[in-house]
């Protein structure tokens, strides 16, 4: 049995927890404002808001693609569809869309409205760029976006201005006062608190069950297959550690249920890896990053997974847990072959552990995809370097899209270690790199393209990190 609040209505249902929230709201509740555009998280027409109760009684909301959100995830949570904005008056988001003609055929519009509401719920500053980021998963084929961008800009200006005058600590309360959200939102926290639903314990997971850590890929790969499985949801496990990012003993600990957006927004991450906030914008879209987990990206085992490539370069290790026993495995030893991993039945990734960088450490991530945002990479690469800015002291290079698994390029590392940072050495390293990789032709590009591109990504790392030490004409064009 699943208990949740949908808009202003408490709902209990015995429907299979493996179906998507999209199917649930449309087919079971007849809330047809939420549209099915693609069922693969590619278009955002199905965007809803998901509210989760936090320890202090407040409810935190995020925008999610409901087509890839299993119903089981919303047990004990609040789901807001476009109907839940309560149409008795026009909300500021709706007004901004209307004022700017940011809707033509109207099919993508409910998703746009909810993503922009998500922006107002989550953006610290109400900055225009945050508004654009919030819309990075919403495809519109009619407007060409110019009008949608204007609507986003209008909202940013209005709310920056309001924020200047007064702001409550509780964003939801504040947005109710500003009429962004209807009055009934005030009651949601209390209602969720009193809701009886079944939290899961980590010990409930075993080899006969399927763990959903976000599920944004599983629901694309085998949506029907999940209906026959016994599902356990990582986000519902009652271990707080699983959902935290912590710094301890020279290491960064990322819990197994931490979402990609949580990682992107983490202050600890900003402190040690400042470039990641932008880099992670290249991973999928807001409505997906809000659900997708770091651990999910790892076990998806895609040879081109962006997060895996980033973590590989950071010398990451995984803490795997089964019942009460734990073991460690280095991420680069975790992959055994195409989609084959060193993980047993009933085992979960409890933590992802990254050594903290010091003042000599540099990091860079590069990705090239056909479309810059919300696309799978043709190739990606990350590098972490310890340097005195003259020589390479330590270096780890990872590349994706050129082998059946995400790869560390140890030979490149070995060659560059101890060497001067120079164009000559870089070009030599590029030669070693291209000799070690064996990409294949596929929809993301030809083998020849990926081979040359990987070399160029290595060059790009050095041009970015050591702009004064590389002769541009030798590496570009």
């Amino acid at each position, binding site marked *: 049995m699943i208990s949740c609040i949908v808009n202003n209505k408490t709902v209990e249902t015995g429907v299979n927890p493996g179906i998507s929230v999209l199917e649930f709201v449309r087919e079971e509740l007849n809330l047809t404002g939420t549209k099915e555009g693609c069922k693969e998280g590619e278009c955002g027409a199905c965007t809803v808001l998901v509210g989760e109760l936090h320890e202090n009684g407040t409810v935190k909301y995020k925008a999610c693609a409901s087509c890839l959100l299993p119903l089981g995830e919303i047990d004990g949570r609040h789901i807001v569809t476009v109907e839940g904005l309560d149409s008795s008056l026009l909300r500021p988001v709706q007004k901004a869309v209307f004022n700017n003609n940011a809707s033509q055929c109207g099919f993508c519009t409910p998703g746009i409205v909810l993503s922009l509401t998500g922006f107002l719920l989550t953006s610290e500053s109400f900055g225009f760029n945050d508004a654009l980021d919030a819309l990075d998963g919403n495809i519109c*084929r009619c407007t060409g976006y110019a009008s949608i961008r204007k609507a986003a800009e209008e909202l940013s200006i209005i709310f920056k201005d309001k924020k200047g005058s007064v702001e409550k600590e509780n964003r939801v309360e504040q947005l109710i006062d500003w009429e962004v959200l209807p009055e009934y939102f005030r009651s949601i926290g209390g209602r969720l608190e009193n809701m009886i639903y079944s939290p899961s314990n980590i010990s409930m997971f075993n080899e006969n069950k399927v763990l959903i850590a976000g599920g944004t890929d599983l629901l694309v790969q085998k949506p029907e297959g999940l209906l026959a499985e016994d599902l356990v949801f990582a986000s519902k496990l009652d271990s707080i550690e699983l959902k935290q990012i912590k710094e301890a003993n020279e290491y960064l600990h990322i819990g197994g249920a931490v979402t990609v957006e949580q990682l992107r927004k983490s202050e600890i991450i900003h402190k040690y890896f400042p470039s990641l906030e932008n880099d992670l914008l290249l991973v999928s879209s807001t409505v997906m990053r809000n659900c997708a987990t770091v651990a999910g990206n790892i076990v998806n085992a895609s040879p081109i997974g962006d997060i895996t490539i980033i973590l590989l370069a950071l010398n990451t290790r995984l803490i795997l847990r089964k019942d009460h026993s734990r073991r460690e495995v280095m991420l680069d030893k975790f992959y055994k072959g195409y989609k084959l991993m060193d993980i047993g039945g009933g085992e979960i990734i409890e933590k992802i552990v990254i050594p903290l960088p010091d003042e000599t450490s540099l990091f860079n991530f590069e990705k090239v995809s056909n479309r810059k945002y919300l696309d799978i990479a043709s190739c990606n690469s990350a590098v972490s370097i310890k340097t005195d800015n003259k020589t390479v002291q330590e270096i780890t290079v990872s590349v994706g899209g050129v082998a059946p698994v995400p790869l560390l390029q140890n030979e490149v590392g070995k060659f560059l270690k101890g060497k001067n940072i120079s164009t000559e050495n870089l070009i030599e390293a590029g030669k070693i790199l291209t000799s070690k990789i064996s990409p294949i032709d596929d929809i993301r590009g030809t083998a020849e393209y990926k081979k040359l591109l990987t070399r160029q990504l290595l060059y790009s790392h050095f041009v970015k990190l050591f702009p004064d030490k590389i002769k541009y004409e030798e590496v570009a064009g």
Partner: protein
Amino acid sequence: MKNSDMLMHIKGKSVFIDDIRDIANIHHGVIFTSPVPKGIIKKLDVKKAEQADGVAAVFTYKDVPGENQIGHIIQDQPLLAEDSVNFVGDPIALVVAETRRQADNALKLIEIEIEELEPVSDPREAYGKGELLVPPRLMCFGETDEVWDKCETIVEGTAESGAQEHFYLETQGALSLPIEDGKVKVFASSQAPGGFQHTIAEVLGVPMHLVEIDIKRLGGAFGGKESCATWAALSAMAAKILDVPVKVVLNRKEDIQNSPKRHPYITDYKLGLDSEGKILAYEVMLYQNSGAYADISLPVLERSFLHAVSSYKIPNAKIRTAACRTNIVPNGAFRGFGVPQSVFAIESAIFKAAEVLGLHPSELQKKNLIHEADPFPYGMAAENCNAEKCWNSLDSKYNIENRIEYVKEYNEKNVLTKKGIAVQPVCFGVSFTQTALNQAGALVHIYTDGSLSVSTGAVEMGQGVNLKIAQIAAEELSVDLKRIKVETTNTTRVANASPTAASTGADLNGMAAKMACSELLKRLKKVAAEIFSVKREKIEIRDETVYAGGRETDITWEKLVNTAYWEKTDLSCHAFYATPLLKFDRDKEWGRPFAYHAYGTSLIEVTLDCIKGTYKIDSVDLVHDVGNSINEELDEGQIEGAVVQALGWSTIENMVFDEKGNMLTSTNSYKVPDIKFLPEKFNVHFLENAPNPYAVSNSKAVGEPPLIHGCGAYFAILNALTAVRKDKEMPSLPLTPEKAFMYIYEKE
């Protein structure tokens, strides 16, 4: 003036096909399609599927009550395959079940054996094998063969462009209801009420009056819902046979796999210029990859044929076209309708000539723009020609020469990045080239309370045609817009409607509505004239008030309508409009196929990352000719949307087929522009003082013409690439980051 539909869209209250829930017992149809590009069906066994949970029936061609045929220009496309299949996605059977999930599950139980045959995917190869829909067409203008010797510069080459997926957000679909007396009512996501009604009636083997099509709105179409009636016909057939409502709505994967695309073309061109850079001769052969069946390929190709010289004056031209039958999905209409491919060919030729001459292409473009009274190769002269006006207007705002100079200087100073810039002139003929289609009907009722109901053949798909029609009606009658309700598009109210296509929706239907309102106004004035005992000519209605002999009276619109009713006046009127002057002789390839042309000029600037081959479109600045805009907000939206679609076509929208014709692209690899793809600067200007005498309210069609601007993105990127190296052949379109990268890094 805002489109009030938006008020429903933003609340999620707008109803699309799949949102219709207030009908009991809706069954769901899913289509079993060919897994191979070409083959003979040896065995088809649907027994297990028929017995699966919830299944009401599995239909094959044997169950089609009427004609198993949906081809409307050439009768070559069966609704359900009989003994052969000709593309991956060719429909073979329809499974109908109580739920979509049950239908999907049953689909997997269908067993088929197909003997595969050797498919063709390349249009040139199909041409070589004689696989043509019709014999090639040829248009000769001037003395092309004789003038080559006089040319100072001659360039030759090939320009190849790929397929484009519409990616309308609402997929193809229809819901059909059996109603009494053997009638079927079809709610369809269709641009072509008349055409679909005709096809469905044939499929069902019933007169057209037993098929009613009703269309409220489409969640985008862009031409993709104009011609192929497969899904609506299957839903109607199942509803009729099973006597239950049947919905057939494709999921995205099915839609991408099975629905028509923009045609890929291969074009061979030859361009000759004199010593001044004036074009003397142009010869082009357009090989259209039509796909497995004719669909609407021939009209698309005809429009390519008629736009071969784009916006340029070319005294000698030889234009040839071939519609090549292959084993990819049958391609169809897509905003632009064959024009972008033709524009791409001639602009490629001009780019190449400019390279040879060491010029920026814009110098040749400007020198050769078409002017007033210059003839197009099909005989029609450019009239009210705005090509140069648009160019000059853009130039006065953005100084084209300075911008090109800036790019040149930037490229001299920078190694890691290069900039590129392109000018794109637009000249787009408006009217269906099938002359008879340029007709429309409108039915206007005035109710006794003064409110109005307007029905036309136009389909609302987000372009705002309903609002334009309402505005035209309100203006004609001088009443408040709120009095007017534009109804669904329904075949029982307006018969034999042409598709809402060729950018003519507002031109044709708006004019028909205006004529109906004008007739009603006459009748109302007659009533008012009697009240005031004056001649009808002395009566005027302004802002809902009757004026007699120039003097305001106390008769309001409502009072007048009410009086007219009691005076037994007919307050309903149907009117019919057909575009005048159109005439085209296909034997001579000569005449006036278009009512007028729409013009424009744009400037697109890009930045190329030379390390990674990626690029960013920095700016699009354009001037576009919309005549006297009926609604500037709608027109701006149409221009922006069209331009961005073509930016996508030119760059990242990459639809890949293997050599057998299998589509390799899927939902997660077909990328249309997203909000961050949008150039940071995007400035749209209307050409000022350019009334058009040939369309309603002196306006111009705006659906398709502005799409052409976006083609400039290809040439802007190419311009940047040639700043890196010049020894490469031009890449095919779309110019993806991969192709840009290989242009830079592939060894020759």
